[in-house]
């Protein structure tokens, strides 16, 4: 297990991508730590991450509802992991655009879980879609879609 982001990146580019280890590492070094990103699960072309409810991430003190920013962060990070899993190419990727539709507010106190799938990856571009929910995957809080670009085409 590497212990700096730089080492992790080298290891990833070498082809040894560990989704759980990646998230645990990022939690101690970056924005993922601020919002408390947790690894839940992954498959061949998808990744599932979660954040716990946290008062410091509240966007509306009157209601205690989370800001939308942390949900975007979660979706963005899960998208990147889904793309690495799908493409089996662990090169740097950048977000081109990301759209999140908020179907309803997350319940105050609930964890938020995002599951993103990379449904198409070309030489240069990857396409993702997915949903976020706060406990019941059948009753999502948000629908998301995005496009990403590989920094160095294979």
């Amino acid at each position, binding site marked *: 297990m590497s212990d700096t982001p730089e080492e992790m990146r080298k290891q990833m580019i070498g082809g040894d991508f560990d989704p759980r280890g990646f998230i645990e590492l990022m939690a101690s070094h970056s*924005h993922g730590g601020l919002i408390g990103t947790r690894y839940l699960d992954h498959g061949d072309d998808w990744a599932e991450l979660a954040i716990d409810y946290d008062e410091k991430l509240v966007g509306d*003190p009157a209601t205690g509802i989370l800001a939308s*920013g942390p949900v975007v962060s979660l979706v963005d990070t899960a998208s990147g992991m889904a793309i690495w899993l799908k493409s089996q190419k662990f090169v740097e990727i950048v977000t081109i655009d990301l759209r999140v*539709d908020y179907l309803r507010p997350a319940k105050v106190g609930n964890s938020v879980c995002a599951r993103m799938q990379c449904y198409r990856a070309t030489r240069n571009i990857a396409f993702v879609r997915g949903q976020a929910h706060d406990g019941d995957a059948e009753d999502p809080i948000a629908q998301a879609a995005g496009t990403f670009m590989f920094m160095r085409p294979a």
Partner: protein
Amino acid sequence: MSVLLPPYAEALGVVAERDDNGRLVLAMDFAAHVRGRPGFLHGGAIAGLLELAAIATVQDRLGSDDRPRFKPITVTTDFMRGGRDKRTYAAAVISRLGSRLANVESFAWQESEDTPIAAARLNFLLARATGSPNR
């Protein structure tokens, strides 16, 4: 009027300022808690800054007597340049402000406003205690 920012702004380290024209500009310093890949801002932190700028700008227009709840409906963020290890600014332009909906465009930049690092289109439902029904 003074600008009230939510706890999320404090967590990101976002502060509200005004430029020489009195326009509201939000600022966020680079730090580990807003970093994604090494040396760059996390896209989610940039999106968070853009959201905060959009809400603060609409609230600034509405004035202190009218404080609706801002329910984001759609947020579409375009990332144009990597956010580097420096202070990031964001300001928003209100496309339309109605009684129930606000359509806002938000921009973030570092070196110069002419070279934005990201932009977002945000549509909010404005929910008031009395009046229009909630979603």
